[in-house]
Structures are given as structure tokens and as C-alpha cells.
């Protein structure tokens, strides 16, 4: 059942690779859309079969692979991974839909897109640490390729930086997993939580530290965020959608599943520091976003800030906070994908993302009024306006963490307020006022420019509209997602007590 979620995209990639001759871009795109449509449909089948009341891994599949290494092909899904699998399917489809005019090697482009989607599914579903690592690494090279080949002017720099940072991330994660096997003397690489009786706290802290930095790079959290703004700025719009919407979630998923899940006791020990780290990351991301002049960098820095909420929620480790973290992963995926799509439309039509140059894009006849409207929806959602996905997730994160870490939560709330500051700056500069796409050097000349932007065709905004609808749907009807993840998030919170009880024979 779950293997099909890997098989569909990988088989699609193979099909594209073996397609005879030199097929046109349109055909490659159609095949990719069909494959991704199938993947989404199958993800929905998995959703239908999923029992939300059960907090354990479900629909498990297992196959011995390299037993001597402890590598086992073992898949399972729970309330934490299922929303991410769904969002992976949806957003990869969105990024394939909004891919237009691939001027070089369309076959490779779509193939890499499918490989990424399959790898991400594999990482979310893996129940074996080494298997997770394999998929985690497998997604790096295709993404590097998507930035390095189809990126902007400085794509080589951004792609290399991305590769170096995430390769270090991978090494730290692999090192921690191997260290775990070495220090505990068992090489089963399962997701069983580690307790003080199996491993001394010092060793736990060392391994957790490596994992925290490893996943902290991927999330990214301050000060390991440096690669993200460059990667986003140079990546094309569909790749940015994928990067912000899905790939960053591998980092936050890792924090919850492996850092918190494997080392619950050490996690509890570090939690106050992690909460402060989260607040610093939130504030840094928000303040850095305020200073940006490039729309895409601003949205990228907003990601740094908003990912901090997930660390805050994980540090607090209350049921509502963990549920909030899941909500935040989903809502950030949708909202950031929406914002990147819209920035992409602005860039395609105007040739710039410079906030000192763009003005008045809401102009009804000559501007991009519908894109601007959706942008306002997107920034309102990101700033946590009630009725939208961002509000539900931030509210739950803050509600869940204020009791445990009031100071860090309050500081994070300030960061939430700053989101409104930088996104209102964005909307005010780029969308309000007199339409222009030049720096206002001479106000008289500036006010007389005849601006001729190409109109945005309705089909170009369909993916963004779908995301906006999803943002409202989660904001107005959060019950569905909440029900899906509630049992799993509550179980995660009980892990430390459960683990202690198991090893002390308390449950026997």
C-alpha cells in the first residue's frame, strides 16, 4: 500500500528516462502530471484507509534488505507523517503545473521532480533510520540539479552552497544514527526511544546535538539558515514552491520524529534552550525579512521565522503544541508555496522582484490585480489572520507553549507581529500606489510612465487559487487535520513517560 507512494513517482521517473526519442516538453509535462495525479490519488486512498484514532504506525510494510547493516525496508504512516505525505503530493503536482517553458532538458527536469517527490515520500514513511537517511540524501542531488541547471544568474553559487550545507546536515544525521548504533551496541536502527538506562545522558546529548544541527540546517534555523535565501532567490518558481512547501518539512519532521522521538529525555533537558533558540530564530527571520528588498528573499526569511514556531512547539512538547507544529508544517507549506507562486508570477510579468522598483501592481487595468488580491490573502494568512491556516497553527503553538516557556512564546508572538510588518511593507510597496516598474528617480516622469505589463491568464493563477482555498479551508475547518494528527501528537508527548515505564518494567 505505502510502497506505491514510492513506486508511482519512481516508476514515472524511470518512464521519462526510458521514453524513446526526443519527446516534446509538453508531453513530458503531461506524463509528469498524470504520474503526480496518481500519486495524489493514492495518497488520498491511504488517507481513507488511515485510522485517526490509532496513534501507532499504520499500514506498515516491511522487507529485510541488508540485515547485517541493520538496513530494513520498513514503511509506516502515522498522524505526523500522513499530512506531510499529502502535502508532498499536492505541492509537487502544483509545482509541475506551474512549470512552464522549460528551455533546456525538460526530460531531466521532470524526472528530477518525480525523484524528489518519491524520495520525500520515502523519508516521511521510513520506519528505519538508515532508510530515512537514504531517502533524505536521495532528494539532495535532484534538488541541487534543479537549482544548478534551471536557476537564476547566480545559480551555481546558490546550488553549491545548498549542497555543502545539506551535505553537512546529512553527515551529521548519519553520524548520529551510526553513533547511536555504536553506543547502544544494537544496530537495528529502529525508531525505539532511547532512555538513560540504555545510553548515558552525556552520549544522548552528544547525539541529539548532532541531529539538532543536522536538521537545524535543513529546517533551517538561525544561524544555519544562510543557504536558504540564496537557494530560493536563484531557484525557479516551481522549485521554490517545492523547497519551501515540502523539503524544509524534512527538517521539522526530523526534529519531531528523530530528535524528540529518539531522545525524549535529553530533549526534555534541552527544551528551555531550544525554546530560546526558536524565539531567536523567529525574531531573526522576521527582522531579516523586514530588511529585504527582494520579494523572494523576504518570503525566504519569513520561512526562517515561521519554522522557528515548530521548534518552539517541539520544545514545549505539550499535546496541543505538537498538534500546532503539525498544523504549522502544513499551513506553512501551503502559504509559502502560495507566496512563492505569486512572487513567481510578478517576476515573470515584470522581470523584477525588487521592492524599490515595483509599485501599484494592484492597478485594475494595467497591473496584476488578481495576483495582488491573492498576495494579500497570502500575506494575511502568513501573518496569522483568523479564518486562515496560519492563525490556527500559530494559535495552537502559542497556546501549547506559553505555559512551559512564557518568555520564548512571547518573543515568538512578537515575531508573528513582525510578519505583518514585513508583509505589509511588501504589499504597500509593490501593490499599492501608482503602477510603475522603475525606481522613482523623478516623480513627474515616474507618474507619467505608460506601463505595459502582459496580463495574467486565468490558468496561470489556478494553482495559487487552489492553495488559497486550502488555506481558508484549514483555517475555517481545522477539525479534519486536527483529527488526523491528534492521536499521534498526544502519543509523542507521552513518549518520555512511556519509554521510562517500558524500561523500568512499569508496564509489565
Amino acid at each position, binding site marked *: 500500500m505505502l510502497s506505491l507512494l514510492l513506486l508511482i513517482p519512481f516508476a514515472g521517473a524511470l518512464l521519462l528516462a526510458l521514453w524513446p526519442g526526443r519527446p516534446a516538453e509538453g508531453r513530458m509535462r503531461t506524463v509528469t502530471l498524470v504520474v503526480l495525479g496518481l500519486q495524489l490519488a493514492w495518497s488520498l486512498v491511504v488517507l481513507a484507509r488511515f485510522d485517526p484514532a490509532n496513534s501507532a504506525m499504520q499500514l506498515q510494510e516491511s522487507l529485510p534488505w541488508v540485515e547485517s547493516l541493520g538496513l530494513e525496508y520498513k514503511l509506516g504512516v502515522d498522524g505526523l507523517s500522513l499530512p506531510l505525505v499529502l502535502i508532498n503530493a499536492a505541492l509537487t503536482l502544483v509545482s509541475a503545473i506551474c512549470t512552464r517553458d522549460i528551455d533546456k532538458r525538460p526530460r531531466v527536469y521532470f524526472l528530477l521532480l518525480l525523484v524528489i517527490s518519491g524520495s520525500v515520500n520515502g523519508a516521511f514513511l521510513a520506519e528505519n533510520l538508515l532508510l530515512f537517511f537514504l531517502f533524505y540524501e536521495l532528494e539532495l542531488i535532484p534538488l541541487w540539479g534543479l537549482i544548478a541547471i534551471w536557476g537564476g544568474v547566480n545559480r551555481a553559487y546558490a546550488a553549491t552552497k545548498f549542497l555543502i550545507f545539506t551535505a553537512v546536515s546529512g553527515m551529521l544525521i548519519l553520524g548520529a544514527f551510526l553513533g547511536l548504533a555504536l553506543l547502544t551496541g544494537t544496530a537495528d536502527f529502529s525508531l525505539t526511544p532511547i532512555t538513560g538506562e540504555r545510553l548515558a545522558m552525556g552520549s544522548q546529548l552528544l547525539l541529539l546535538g548532532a541531529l539538532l544541527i543536522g536538521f537545524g540546517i535543513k529546517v533551517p534555523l538561525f544561524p544555519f539558515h544562510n543557504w536558504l535565501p540564496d537557494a530560493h532567490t536563484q531557484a525557479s518558481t516551481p522549485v521554490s514552491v517545492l523547497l519551501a512547501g515540502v523539503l524544509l518539512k524534512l527538517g521539522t519532521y526530523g526534529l519531531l520524529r528523530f530528535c524528540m522521538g529518539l531522545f525524549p529525555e535529553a530533549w526534555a533537558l534541552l527544551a528551555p534552550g531550544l525554546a530560546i533558540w526558536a524565539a531567536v530564530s523567529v525574531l531573526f527571520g522576521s527582522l531579516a525579512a523586514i530588511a529585504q528588498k527582494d520579494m523572494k528573499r523576504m518570503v525566504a526569511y519569513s520561512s526562517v521565522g515561521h519554522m522557528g514556531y515548530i521548534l518552539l512547539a517541539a520544545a514545549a512538547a505539550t499535546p496541543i503544541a505538537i498538534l500546532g507544529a503539525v498544523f504549522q508544517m502544513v499551513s506553512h507549506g501551503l502559504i509559502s508555496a502560495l507566496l512563492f507562486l505569486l512572487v513567481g508570477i510578478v517576476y515573470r510579468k515584470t*522581470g523584477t522582484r*525588487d521592492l524599490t522598483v515595483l509599485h*501599484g501592481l494592484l492597478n485594475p487595468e*494595467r497591473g496584476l490585480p488578481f495576483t495582488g488580491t491573492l498576495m494579500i490573502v497570502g500575506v494575511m494568512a502568513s501573518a496569522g489572520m483568523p479564518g486562515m491556516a496560519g492563525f490556527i497553527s500559530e494559535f495552537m503553538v502559542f497556546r501549547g507553549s506559553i505555559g512551559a516557556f512564557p518568555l520564548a512564546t512571547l518573543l515568538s508572538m512578537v515575531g508573528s507581529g513582525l510578519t505583518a510588518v514585513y508583509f505589509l511593507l511588501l504589499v504597500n510597496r509593490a501593490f499599492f500606489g501608482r503602477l510603475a516598474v522603475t525606481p522613482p528617480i523623478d516623480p513627474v516622469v515616474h*507618474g507619467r510612465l*505608460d*506601463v505595459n505589463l*502582459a496580463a495574467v491568464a486565468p490558468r496561470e493563477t489556478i494553482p495559487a487559487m487552489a492553495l488559497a482555498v486550502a488555506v481558508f479551508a484549514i483555517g475555517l475547518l481545522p477539525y479534519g487535520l486536527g483529527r488526523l494528527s491528534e492521536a499521534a501528537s498526544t502519543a509523542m508527548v507521552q513518549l518520555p513517560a512511556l519509554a521510562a515505564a517500558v524500561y523500568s518494567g512499569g508496564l509489565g
Partner: protein
Amino acid sequence: MPIISAELVRSGGMPSAAELEASLLAGHTLLSNTAEHLIEVVDVLESYGQVLDAYSKNLIFQAEQQFLLPFPLFKYLDGDKTVAKIWRHLNHDRINFEYAEYCMKAMLWHGTGGLDAYLDSEPFAANCRAIIGRKTRRDPLLALLHPVFRGFLIELIRTAATTSALGQFWRVMSDLFLDLAAAEAAGRVGSIDAVVEFIKDGLVAVAGNPITYAVEIEGERMWVLPPEAGLTFLADVAVPYVEAVFLRGLPFLGTVSFNAQAQQISPDQGQFAYGALYADPLPSMGAGIPPSLLMQDMYRHLPERLHQLYRQRGRGEGDVRVKICMSFQKSMFCVTNAAIRGTFPSPLSSGDPAEQAANRAYAAAWASRLAVARTDCLD
């Protein structure tokens, strides 16, 4: 700095005041003579002529039939109160008569020229007293209002007088613009210069036409603007209209807004530059009478030749109102050009130094105001 495609942003020539002055004195047209400009100007003036016809009829209807009505609910229906007409009105299948009222209010508020002077004169006050005396005899509401607010009915009569004067002015202009289209179709007008000359001749021909206005109250015809006031078409209505609507206008709030407290709007009405010649064709409503209302009306009457041209430019139907406004501004520069040409103190060919100096001063005064208008459309 980003690389911005030159195709996305274009700024016109924007001639200096000195260049404009030289052009006016040399008898050249402000708008350059191109085949496309000719189509734009003639066709947009044809649609404008048809719209002015409707505006004019309605303004005259309002002035004569809705005079001192406290609640003129049906003032835009031209007396046709059938269900079909009311439905079309409510469904907004109609001309935006509000635009005509904005223009009237701009004239009333800026108040320049002979009409305004007469509206503040003693003979006008005497007319008002007579009209109010007769009107309040059978109208209890007005009879109650007048003693309490002494200036209220007089101001309404001033409004009605301006409404009638504008209606009469536009009646003439409507016919002139429709005649221009017919002349161009007949091959008698083939250049921008010929357009300017045609309009100038039309204005000069009716310059001395009297502007009068009377209302019928209880079977008696009473003068508001009597013939003895000596108000004439060009000096007392056309020139104040150009001053109020083409040049000064009113600042309207839109996506570009003005802060009067921060002195972004001049406290001196004479310095206002929000008129049709300054208005931004992009519907940011930054300046001038909301141009989108007039553009919507002209769109209803757009000649097919011009419509076809618009379909091939920019966003086609998508930004058609912006293109209409740009063409409209070109045509208004031609009308202004004609008005200036027809009102030079002395013939341009004069060899008398004193007359030349007077002409130069006249041209310089116009050029200084036009230099900051939207001259980017002229080249």
C-alpha cells in the same frame, strides 16, 4: 539593479514649457501629426460627442424639469419613468450622468469667468427672490426651509444655472465633434492640424451665442439667466469650463491619495492641477474627475475602427478604458490647442512688436500650465 525591459515602461517626450510656447507661436499643433493620432482623436471625439449628447440632454432636463425638487429621485431618467427604463438604470445599463454632475460641480466650485460673476450679482439675487417667492407659495417644504437656511435655495438655483449652462455648452460641443467625425469620413479633415482648425472654426462660429436659462413655475416663465445678463458661449461658459475641468479639476481619493493637512493639495484653488489634461489614465484615480466614469460611457459608443485599433494594442479589451483615456487626452490637447489658437490676442502673422509680445505672453502663460500636464501623450 534589476534589468527592466524597455517594452514594459515607456515615457513620452514631455516637451518643456519653452518648446510648447514656440510650438504655439509657430502655429504648430501640440499633438504630433500621425495617422494613428488622427484615428484616435477623431474617433474618440465621435464617441465623446455621442456621450455629450446624452449628458447635455440630461443636464438641460435636470435644470428645467427637476428645478428645486428636494428629492430628485428620477433626475437621470430624462422624464422616462417606464419600468424598462428604471430597470436598465438600476442594472447600470446607462450613461454615467454623475460624471456630468462632477464637471458641473467643478465649474461651480472653481467659479471663474462671467457666469460666476453673474451668479453673485444683484440682478441674479433679484431673480432668485422672485423665483423663491413664487415657488414657496405652493411648496410647504421649501417655504419652511427658506427662512431657516437663507442661502440654501439660492445655492440650488446657482447649481441649476450652472447645470443648464454646461448642458448648453455641451450641446454645441457634441454637434461639433459629431460634425468633425462626419468631415473626416468625407475626407475633408485629414490631419491633426485640420482637426484643430475645424474645432477652432466651430468655437469661433458660436463664440458669441447667448447663454440663457428660464424655468417655468406655476405656468409662469421666469428667468434665471436672462438675455440681458449678456452671457455668451465662449467667454462666459467655455473658458470657465476649460479652466475648471481641463486644468484645475478636483482631487479625488483613490489608490493614490492626497493629504490636505500636509499641504499636498494647494490651498490656492488657482494652483490646482487635477483636470482632464493632468489626469492619470491609469485608474488610480489620483487626479481629476474620476476618469473611469467617462471612459465607461465612451466605451459604449466606441467607433469600430478605433475599437479595432485598441484590440491590437496592449491588453486588447483588458485595458481598453486606459487606452480610451489616453486617446481622450490627446483629443483634449487638440481642443485646448484650438481654443488657444482662437483666442490669441492678435493674429500670429502680425508684424507689430507690441502684438507679438502680447501673443508671446499669452502663449507663455498657457505653456507654463501645459508643461506639467500629461504631455507624454503628444509625441
